[in-house]
Structure formats: structure tokens, C-alpha cells
């Protein structure tokens, strides 16, 4: 009798599976945290969009999860009006970033959040702490919780 061929997932499939696991946690807490989510399949990787509203303004976080968790997600902000239609090609825009303490403006063309769990936070040895698998307080789910809390309490 022929043995069933074992299917070995590609690194990209493994990465997408781990992002899906994090996304499931985010969906489970949507009501509690009051965010809206979209998961966009960009082929080899996922892009997660998170819409977070505060009294006077809405923000949409774009998280490009290529090679997660080998590499931290690339986390930027896009025009909130594009939330429903955004995909991997949607360009981040400095005009839609929050402002305040821990938003740094001198590290490139876009502002950078000085907050754990995204690529630019660790880039160029700015901070340490990214590991594969990520520590509990650096993982994708926790990064989004952290950004949500900062938007509501620290940034405007």
C-alpha cells in the first residue's frame, strides 16, 4: 500500500498560519477593544488592517506580516477612508499618523512609533527584544493592543 505523501508547508505558509493565529485572537477581542479588522491576503504573506476610533479621529494601522515571526511586522498608518478597500499596495501616509510623545519624526520619510512589536522599532539596533518566536509582550496581538491603548491615552 502506498504511503500518503506528507505535505510540508512552505515557510510562507507557516508564516501565514502564525499570523492567522494572532488574527483569531484579535477578532475574538473586537467587541472588547472596539476595533475593526481586515485580513488581506497578499500571496506570500498577510496584511492586517486595524481601524481604531477615538472621540475626534479615526486611525487605520496597516501591518505587513511578511516573514513573521522571523521579522517583526511593518506597521504604518494609512488614510482611514481607505479601510474597506485597502490592500498590500496601499501606501502609508504621514498625514494620518498620530502625534505626541513616542512618535519620532527623524528616522525616515514616515514618522515611527517608538513602541514594541514592529519592524522599525528594532531597525538599525534602535531597540532590542525581537525574537523568534516573539516574547509575549512583543507579539503581533500585543503590538496592536499597545497601539490601541497609546492612541486612546497618549497620542492624538
Amino acid at each position, binding site marked *: 500500500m502506498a504511503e500518503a505523501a506528507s505535505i510540508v508547508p512552505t515557510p510562507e505558509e507557516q508564516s501565514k498560519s502564525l499570523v492567522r493565529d494572532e488574527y483569531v485572537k484579535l477578532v475574538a477581542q473586537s467587541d472588547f477593544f472596539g476595533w475593526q479588522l481586515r485580513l488581506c491576503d497578499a500571496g506570500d504573506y498577510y496584511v492586517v488592517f486595524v481601524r481604531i476610533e477615538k472621540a475626534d479621529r479615526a486611525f487605520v494601522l496597516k501591518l505587513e506580516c511578511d516573514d513573521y515571526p522571523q521579522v517583526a511586522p511593518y506597521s504604518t498608518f494609512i488614510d482611514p477612508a481607505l479601510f474597506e478597500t485597502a490592500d498590500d499596495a496601499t501606501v502609508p501616509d504621514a498625514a494620518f499618523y498620530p502625534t505626541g510623545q513616542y512618535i519620532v519624526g527623524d528616522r525616515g520619510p514616515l514618522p515611527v512609533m517608538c*513602541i514594541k512589536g514592529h519592524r522599525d522599532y528594532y531597525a538599525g539596533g534602535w531597540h532590542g527584544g525581537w525574537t523568534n518566536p516573539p*516574547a509575549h509582550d512583543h507579539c503581533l496581538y500585543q503590538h496592536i493592543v499597545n497601539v490601541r491603548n497609546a492612541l*486612546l491615552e497618549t497620542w492624538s
Partner: protein
Amino acid sequence: MAVDEKRKPKTIELVIVYGVNKELEVSESETILEVKKEALALFEIDESELGNFVLRAKVQGDKDEQLDEARTVESYKLHNKQKVTLAAGTPFGEGR
């Protein structure tokens, strides 16, 4: 018949939010720090990471806030089935 009972601290069940929800039975006399240790164990997070996390809950109105670890469950009037979030304590980088 009069029964002489010492008042036992009441226990309640909190819902700890950390990706998934898990229920945690606590006594009203426990401190938030004690609850945090139990919450970490619930999610199999090593106690060495204690300082990396805080507990947050909606205490007044709709806005959740960080709970003071020296205070007790009772002092916050946390109630049965109340959601308490296990969150990163120091999410921001240093030096900025």
C-alpha cells in the same frame, strides 16, 4: 439558631483577556499583584516576565485603565465575570 461565622472573603470569577479569554477565580481580598501572578500562570507566561505586564479594566465608564497593584480586588469593586486585560506594562522604548 445563631451561627457565629467569621466573614470569609468573597470569591469572584474574573475573565482575563489575553488573546483568548480565560476565567480566574480570585478572592476579593487579593491584591492586583497577586491576581496578575495568577493571570500569568493561567496563560503559561513565566513569572520572570511579571514586570512586563499590567492588568487593566474598565473601572469607571467605558475607558479601561491600569490597575494599581497594591490595591485589592474589592477596592476596585471588580465584579463577577468582569473582563480584566493582561497588557504590556512598558510598551514604549526608552530614551525618547
